[in-house]
């Protein structure tokens, strides 16, 4: 099976190529078959490879495809590297990606751009696979940028709307800011290590970069810059809420299987560099903690169902960053996987709701769908429970609980990280169930269209099962102590070192998290089910805060004012190129003298005689003066 590794990214790519070349000629059936089928095959290959890795987590599969370029000491290849870490990623990407493809066949069925849509989706999956499979940073950068391109194409898929194009460009440009930081990081890495092959860098790192060295710290910060761009973390998080301008399956793909998890992958992949730069690693945690809070509060105030989910993604990725910041790599990856399941589920569910409600996004205009759409409701509820981390029964509880615990217990953790994570968990529970209550309970406000078909419900059910059951592969010490996932991950990342003597408090942490989560659900229930009349009062009493949170803490406005407006202004005032004024000036001056002297040639004899006389006097007087 090992030698077929290259097929994993190649199949979706081939699919994309066929769909692009055949666009206009292929029927929708064939397009959907090629699109979903190619990713399905990749998923099958990944599954087989995954079984092999489960038996033998320390396996490493290397595959060299061809030499890309080699110049002046730099040699990069199209080469793949599969280990336990990238295995988790390719499994999630292909498997969740496949489910999203299946769902899209029905969801996009009436769209004119059906074939184009599947071409982009396939390319997206392919880019993400290259990103996680690359054995060197240049190839990873190719996947990295490819993901950016595909997100641009898919967010702007309905290109006729001006605002979709805007959201698409915003996503591409903002992530490109991060990418540029990462590119500079690559230059520094090359200068320090003389290679850009990831494993070589990681092996050489302890020798070349002393603990806490300046170079190492700058490199880690630059990589972090790339990571925050793609993963929508502070301060580059602003593109993600707008990114839901694309069709719902795209949001599911961006938020769950691809794109936003790229940053988590990058940091985990290069964790030795971060361990050698404690300052940078601490900042990973700080960024995660702050992001998870501000995104959580923003999610509390949104009307748009998909926007709530978008902010929840930013917040959940914040948890992963927090975990990475305290050195709990395995916990971060575990949460990544669980999050991929439930976030894909939630977005696909939300998409289905929006579809049957005829493109209604506003949760306040929804309601009462519980009985009308039972499958969507129950699966959505499972996903929501997982997002809110309902204790004991959801997968999200096990993955998030681990991060909460690590935020405190890890040697690199502290009480502030823990408190941020705890408050975040509380807020998450509130906004998640606010969303559930508004959308599915209460009275029906919008007419429900025709029900959804099997291609939509099957992916929902599968993801629902995973969002519920996948958590049981990793249970904490206090509850069964089953460590399948973290044992598996030790093949690539070290176990987190805990502060001495802290183990005994683990049950306390879990209890407080569980209580806060249930309290959050209770608050949501109180305001959105029980006493809906109090809502208006609450809202008017904190209208300023509400608006501030609603706008995503004003980041958009600040960036607009500091970067976008000045750039556009600078560009527009100089549209005619001020430098050209200099050359035009030369032309005018020459023309002026040309006119002036031309005027003296008027054909009148007395002017000429006058000229001769004046000239003669001038020359003579100079002669006399300088005698």
């Amino acid at each position, binding site marked *: 099976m090992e030698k077929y590794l290259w097929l994993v990214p190649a199949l979706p790519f081939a699919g994309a190529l066929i769909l692009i070349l055949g*666009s206009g000629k292929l029927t929708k059936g064939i397009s959907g078959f090629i699109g979903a089928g190619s990713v399905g095959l990749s998923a099958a290959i990944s599954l087989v490879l995954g079984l092999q890795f489960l038996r033998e987590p320390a396996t490493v599969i290397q595959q060299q495809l061809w030499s890309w370029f080699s110049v002046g000491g730099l040699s990069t290849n199209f080469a793949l590297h599969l280990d336990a870490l990238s295995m988790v990623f390719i499994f999630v990407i292909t498997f969740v990606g496949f489910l999203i493809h299946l769902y899209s066949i029905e969801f996009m069925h009436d769209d004119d751009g059906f074939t184009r849509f599947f071409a982009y989706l396939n390319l997206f999956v392919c880019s993400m696979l290259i990103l996680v499979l690359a054995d060197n940073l240049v190839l990873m*950068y190719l996947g990295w940028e490819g993901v950016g*391109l595909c997100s641009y194409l898919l967010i702007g898929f309905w290109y006729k709307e001006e605002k979709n194009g805007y959201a698409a460009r915003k996503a591409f*440009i903002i992530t490109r800011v991060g*990418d540029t930081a990462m590119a500079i990081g690559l230059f*520094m890495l090359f200068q320090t290590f003389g290679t850009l092959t990831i494993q070589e860098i990681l092996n050489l790192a302890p020798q070349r970069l002393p603990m806490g060295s300046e170079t190492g710290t700058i490199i880690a910060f630059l990589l972090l810059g790339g990571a925050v761009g793609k993963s929508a973390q502070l301060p580059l998080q602003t593109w993600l809420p707008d990114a839901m301008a694309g069709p719902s399956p795209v949001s599911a793909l961006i938020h769950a299987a691809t794109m936003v998890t790229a940053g988590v992958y990058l940091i985990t992949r290069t964790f030795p560099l971060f361990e050698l730069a404690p300052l940078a690693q601490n900042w990973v945690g700080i960024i995660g903690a702050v992001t998870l809070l501000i995104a959580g509060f923003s999610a509390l105030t949104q009307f748009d169902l998909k926007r709530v989910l978008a902010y929840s993604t930013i917040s959940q990725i914040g948890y992963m960053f927090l975990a990475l910041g305290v050195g709990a790599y395995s916990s971060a990856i575990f949460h990544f996987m669980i999050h991929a399941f439930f976030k894909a589920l939630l977005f696909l569910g939300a998409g289905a709701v929006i579809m049957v409600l005829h493109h209604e996004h506003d949760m306040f205009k929804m309601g009462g769908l519980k009985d009308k759409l039972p499958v969507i409701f129950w699966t959505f509820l499972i996903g929501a429970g997982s997002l809110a981390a309902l204790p004991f029964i959801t997968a999200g509880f096990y993955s998030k609980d681990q991060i909460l615990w690590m935020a405190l217990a890890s040697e690199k953790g502290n009480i502030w990280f823990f408190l941020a994570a705890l408050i975040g968990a509380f807020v998450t529970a509130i906004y998640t169930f606010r969303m559930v209550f508004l959308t599915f309970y209460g009275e029906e406000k919008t007419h429900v269209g025709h029900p959804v078909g099997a291609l939509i419900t099957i992916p929902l059910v599968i993801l629902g099962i995973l969002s519920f059951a996948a958590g049981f592969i990793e249970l904490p010490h206090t509850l069964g102590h089953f460590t399948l996932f973290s044992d598996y991950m030790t093949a690539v990342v070290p176990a987190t070192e805990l502060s001495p003597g802290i183990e005994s408090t683990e049950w306390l942490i879990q209890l407080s998290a569980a209580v806060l989560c249930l309290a959050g659900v209770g608050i949501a229930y109180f305001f959105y089910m029980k006493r809906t009349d109090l809502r208006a009062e609450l809202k008017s009493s904190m209208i300023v805060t509400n608006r501030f949170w609603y706008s995503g803490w004003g980041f958009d406005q600040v960036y607009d004012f500091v970067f976008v407006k000045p750039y*556009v202004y600078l560009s527009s005032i*100089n549209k005619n190129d001020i430098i050209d004024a200099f050359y035009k000036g030369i032309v005018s001056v020459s023309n002026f003298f040309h006119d002036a002297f031309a005027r003296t040639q008027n054909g009148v004899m007395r002017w000429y005689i006058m000229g001769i006389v004046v000239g003669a006097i001038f020359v003579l007087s100079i002669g006399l003066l300088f005698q």
Partner: protein
Amino acid sequence: MVLLLFIIILMAGGVVAWIASRFNETVGKIIALLTVSADLALSIMVWLNRQAYLDSSQDQWMMRFNAEWIPTFGISVSFALDGLSLLMIMLTFFLGVLAVLTSWKEIEYRTGFYYFNLLWVLAGITGVFLTMDLFLFYFFWEVMLIPMYFLIGVWGHENKTYAAYKFFIFTQASGLLMLLAILSLYFIHGSANGTYTFNYFELLNTTYSPEVGRLLMLGFLAAFVVKLPVVPFHTWLPDAHSQAPTAGSLILAGLLLKTGAYGLLRFVVPFFPEASLELAPVAMLFGVIGILYGAILAFSQTDFKRLVAYTSVSHMGFVILGVFAFNELAWQGVVMQMITHGISTGALFILAGSLYERIHTRDITSMGGFWARMPFMAVIALIFSMASLGLPGLGNFVAEFLTLLGSWSANRTLTIFAAIGLVGATAYSLRIMQKIYYGEARMDPHRSSHSQDLGTREKLIFIPMVLLIVWLGVYPQVFIDTAKRPVNDGLKLSEQKIRKSFEAREAVLNQKGGAHE
């Protein structure tokens, strides 16, 4: 002999096409097409036989041609071909074929004279890339200038006379400074060695004081930085590009600018390594200014061709940044940039031409929503916009990545600013897509010419360009290998010269020091 043939075929083909067109225009076009295709085929054959050259360690040159011309003044017809010039002439003929194809329907009057000029520009460019005699070099420099002036001035758009004059004066004035430098070099060499010659290889060994070196370098530099162009000498370019007919813009952007870059690599650095090294920080600074300035200006242009012209200014900034970084990575990046920019920007200009043929405007604010009606063209536009913003997988990425990687070790601060230019490139490239292909359709969809997707001839132009830019993006090694020897030899030579003069000065200092003791 082959080298001479490259130029003669073009020149003769030009004359024949002109004459034939008097009787039958189609025959004239076909002759022009065949002429350039013959040269392209010939150059590819030479390239396919490159292995012996790559393996051998002695001669830096793949081919040479030498004949006396005016022996009294030491002027000879001297050509030589190495990997660098081979790549350049292949690019010349490739874009040349496309130039003939794009003109096929666009040029409606005086076609014979048009193709004559087109082929003679190409001949001039080929000459510039091949000649190893500085007098002849200057001659070809003019040969490419004058027909280009006609191409813009006769077949251009609404403001063609102004643009043609501007182009001519800028290039001519800077070219005269180069002539001055060439003549000075000639006399300095002659008076020192007794042999008066314009031969490149002889002049390479001329020695002069640092002050003289600096002055002479500035003379050469003047011609090349105007051609390249480097901000603030770029203002001829947006006018010339936007007013020229499509093939004219293609050749200007794809090839004429590259003669400036080629001149830097072939003449400025090897002749004046020391002075170049002194100038490097300033030159790199100007490169970065060009990258950012071009990107900012491109963003606000509303004339499609003007927009693309400013992106050229931005991209050429990478060339000067890389040349003065003085290392293999950066130089290979520069060579790649010359090729990939020629293709990607050329494609954007042809797109502008195709749009102009359909809707008779270059104003992007009046366009929009073309994706629905011209999906094929939109995909092509997408590919080349992505190339222009440096998307990995397309050739331009390799070029810019290598250039930046190389310049990082030379100057970190400037490299950071140059890298920021990539964000600017994203902004203007996406603006192209947004204004033209995204959004609501603004033009009348019922006029058939407004919604015709690319035809066979146009596909024939774009598909090879796409294939080539992807090839350059995923497997550039064959091109890198071809340019490897010239790049390394150029660097080695410069290093040796710098070391030698350094040692000489050291010796003088030691002597002086000894005298004092």
